[in-house]
Each structure stands twice: as structure tokens, then as C-alpha cells.
């Protein structure tokens, strides 16, 4: 209870900011800056005014939000599969990583939105192109972090594994992968927020559904409360993703922190 009150005490600026926002926008009466109550009303109308048996979600909400989230996770999983496996290989082979280092540096430096027209020409508009853009844009932090994690495995652990006669595969799964896991998770978290950004831009450029498309639609019809409302939803999604990921990470890596503490 005390902790709850203290948390509430820390959050006092939020209602203050909301009231100030409401007061200033009402006083200014500028079409481009609608008051938050108007944004909230528009958000309700856009997404939560559906029938009760569908949890009040509208067609637009059911069409667009799951589509966008699906694209984020498809791209994220693809990038994770490629990034982790390639990262582990490069982390364990100094020679190979010397050969591909400039290619990785270059790929990482390309601003991912610049690749949109490329994937658009290759796949045409649709989920395939969005997933490709997301995966290509976010694979780099996963790849580099996995490589870094796999490079710095405790020598004692590796030598112990050798003494016990572990095969290469066993060593990879039981020694190298767990040692690299904290780093891999750091990369995965970074790439999740990047995936959200790339989802939005890819849906803004070439799409006929998704949250990004809805944003573009609202912008084209000068629906300012709609634009603001969509931005709020995207912010909430970003916040939710990050919090959920931290929760999972804490669960999965608790052994790691415990091991660090005993040393």
C-alpha cells in the first residue's frame, strides 16, 4: 500500500500535464492541436465503439491492430533467428568475422527506410515487403550483440566442457548460448522498439491496412484528432512491448543474476 502510494506520488505530473494540455489547447482553439478529451473521444470512436460481444472493438481495430502486431513479430522472429545464429558463428570464429565485418558495418549503416522502395519493387506492397523491411532493419543489433556475447565466454567454462568430452553441439547449446544470452536479450530488446518504428514507416509507404495505414488515412483526410489518437496508440504499444519484454527477460535471466551475485 505504501509502495503504491509512493508510486502514485511520483506520477502526479501526468494528470497535471494532461489538465494543462487540455486548458492550453482549449484556450488556443487551434485545429492542429485538439484537446486530449477530443483525442480520447476520437480514439473511442475509431477503435472501441464496436459491439459488446467483440469486447467493444470496432472493425477498424480488429483489422488493423492485430495485422500490425503480427508484422512486427514476424519480422522480429525472422531477425532473431538469423541474427542469433549468425552472431554465434561469427562470435566463435575470429577469422570469419574479419571477412564479413565490413559487410556488416555497411548493412548496419544503411538507413532502413531507404530500403523500403527496394523491397517494394521486389515483393510489391503487402505483408511480405513489410516483414522483409523490419527484419533487415533490426537484425543488426541482434547480430552484433550475439556475436559480442559469444566472443566473451568464460575460458574456464569452455575448458571444463572440453575435459568432460562435450561435443561441439553440446558446447554450443549448454555453454556458449547461455553465456551469450544476457547480451542476446539486450539486442532483442533494442530491436523490438526498432521493429515498431519500421512497422509504422513501412505501413505508411506501401500498405492498405495496419496502424500505419490508418495514420496515413487520418492525415490525408485532415482528421487531426485521428492522427493524434493513432500516435497515442503507437506510444502505448511501444510502452507495452518494452514492459512485457523486461518482464520476460527478468524471468528468463534470473539464474544469470543469481549466478553473478554468488561470485
Amino acid at each position, binding site marked *: 500500500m505504501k509502495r503504491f502510494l509512493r508510486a502514485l506520488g511520483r*506520477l502526479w*505530473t501526468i494528470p497535471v500535464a494532461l489538465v494543462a494540455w487540455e486548458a492550453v489547447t482549449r484556450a488556443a482553439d487551434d485545429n*492542429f492541436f485538439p484537446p486530449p478529451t477530443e483525442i480520447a473521444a476520437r480514439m473511442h470512436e475509431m477503435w472501441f465503439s464496436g459491439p459488446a460481444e467483440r469486447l467493444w472493438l470496432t472493425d477498424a481495430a480488429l483489422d488493423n491492430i492485430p495485422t500490425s502486431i503480427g508484422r512486427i513479430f514476424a519480422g522480429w522472429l525472422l531477425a532473431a533467428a538469423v541474427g542469433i545464429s549468425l552472431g554465434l558463428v561469427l562470435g566463435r570464429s575470429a577469422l570469419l568475422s574479419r571477412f564479413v565485418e565490413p559487410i556488416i558495418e555497411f548493412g548496419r*549503416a544503411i538507413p532502413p527506410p531507404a530500403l523500403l522502395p527496394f523491397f517494394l519493387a521486389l515483393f510489391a506492397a503487402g505483408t511480405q515487403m513489410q516483414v522483409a523491411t523490419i527484419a533487415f532493419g533490426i537484425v543488426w543489433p541482434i547480430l552484433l550483440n550475439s556475436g559480442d556475447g559469444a566472443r566473451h565466454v568464460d575460458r574456464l567454462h569452455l575448458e571444463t566442457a572440453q575435459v568432460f568430452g562435450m561435443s561441439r553441439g553440446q558446447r554450443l547449446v549448454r555453454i556458449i548460448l547461455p553465456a551469450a544470452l544476457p547480451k542476446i536479450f539486450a539486442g532483442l530488446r533494442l530491436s523490438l522498439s526498432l521493429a515498431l*518504428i519500421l512497422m509504422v514507416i513501412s505501413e505508411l509507404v506501401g500498405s492498405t491496412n495496419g496502424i500505419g495505414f490508418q495514420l496515413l488515412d487520418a492525415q490525408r483526410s485532415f482528421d487531426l484528432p485521428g492522427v493524434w489518437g493513432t500516435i497515442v496508440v*503507437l506510444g502505448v504499444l511501444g510502452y507495452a512491448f518494452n514492459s512485457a519484454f523486461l518482464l520476460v527477460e527478468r524471468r528468463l535471466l534470473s539464474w544469470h543474476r543469481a549466478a553473478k551475485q554468488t561470485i
Partner: protein
Amino acid sequence: MRGRSLLDSRLLCGAAGVAGLFCVAELAGRTGLIDPVVFPLASTIAGRAAALAADGEFLADVASTLGAWAAGLLLTVLVAVPAGFALGTLPRVEAALRPILEFLRPIPSVALIPLALLLFSDRFEMKIAVIVYAASWPVLINTMYGLKDVDPVAKETLRSFGFGPLAVLWRVSLPSTAPFIATGVRLAAAVALILAVSAELLAGGASGIGTFIIEAGSSPDALEYIVAATIWAGAIGVLSNLLFTLVERRLFHWHLARTEGAR
């Protein structure tokens, strides 16, 4: 022995890696594994990229993107560094604003482009606005983080010699935070380039690399132009990253020496 030393050279290995990728891509096209009509040959793209380097129109686009990038980055530093200092040195203000910042941060920056398109009639101003918003985060956070790292003994020493709070800020906090700010600016430079290209992709009409890529999409050998321009975008990213790392090392070698020594 000689072969060994050749394999130890990062430059040679890297060059070999790039050349190898080029040859594989070229061979895949020549043997028909990848249809050259679907995806142009590596040599065609290299030729096109070289031709673009002498193309006045493309160079004007590059200059336009770099101009927005530089102006946005400069403004970012002017806004985010003082803000970081204010939040880092005034704990009460930081505690009050933290929840609001925590809500603003997860908003995907590109989602603001449609809103900025409505708010700013001038395309250049629009670009600068979204660049400053997105690039401020790494600078702000690194500045605040750096201020936490300032040696308290140094501050106390100056204070006991009768220096005022501003003198302490100028003589101790600023120099010892500078390396962190530099890291933030390096990260912000990459973000700024991404936002500049994204804004150009969405805004259209105005000049810039993003606009060039979008417009190339309608020409018959679109993919050739798109990939060549994307290669230059990546090259700019690599160069800016290299430049910032170099400046950082040159200016703050004392900081690197200190942190390396502490390890």
C-alpha cells in the same frame, strides 16, 4: 608464416569479403540463378552507383539530405544538452518530468511525420522538427547518464575551495560529461539520417535521397537506381559513423584511457 600474417590483416580480409560477396552476386546473376531482370547484376549496380556519383541531380539530393541532417543535429545538441544538464543537476525537476518522458519515449518517431506534415507547410522545417524530436533522446539520456558519473570528490573539492555551483558545473561536470555527450551525438547522427530519409520518402516533392529513391521507382530500371542510391545512403552512414568515432577518440582519449585502465 606469410599466409598467416595475411589472414591477420583486417583490411585485407575485409576487402576479400566484400570482393567475394560481389563475385557471388555477379555469378548468381550470370548463371541465371537470380534472373538479372528481377534483380540487376552486381556490376550493373556498381556502374550505376559510380555514374550517380557524377550525376549533378543526385548530388543535389544528397546535399539536401545532408543539409537537413546537419542542421537537425546541431539543433538537437543545442536543445538536448542543456535539457540533459537541467534534468541531471535538478533532481526534483527530473523526478517530476520522468513519468512524462517515460510516456513520450516509446512513441515511434516516424509516426510523428504525418502529423508534422500537417503542422509544417515548409518541408525543410518539417524534416528538422522530426529529426530534432527523434535525435534528442540519445543525447538527453547520455548527458543525464554522464552527469551521474561525475566524480563527487572533484565536485566537493571545488566547492570547499569556494567555487559556486555554476563554476563547479563548468569546470568539473561539463568536461567529465563531454565524452558521454559525444557518444550520444554519435548515436543521434544515425537516428537523424534515418529520420531525414524517412521524412523524404513520405513528404515527396522536396529534394533529398529519399525523394530520389521514390522517384526512381517509376523508371524502367527502377531497381538498379534504387539499389545504387541505397548504397550511397549506406556509405554516408558508414562515413558519418567513422567520422564521429574518430573525433571522439581524438578528443577524449584521456577518457578512454581512464575507463580502460579502470577495467
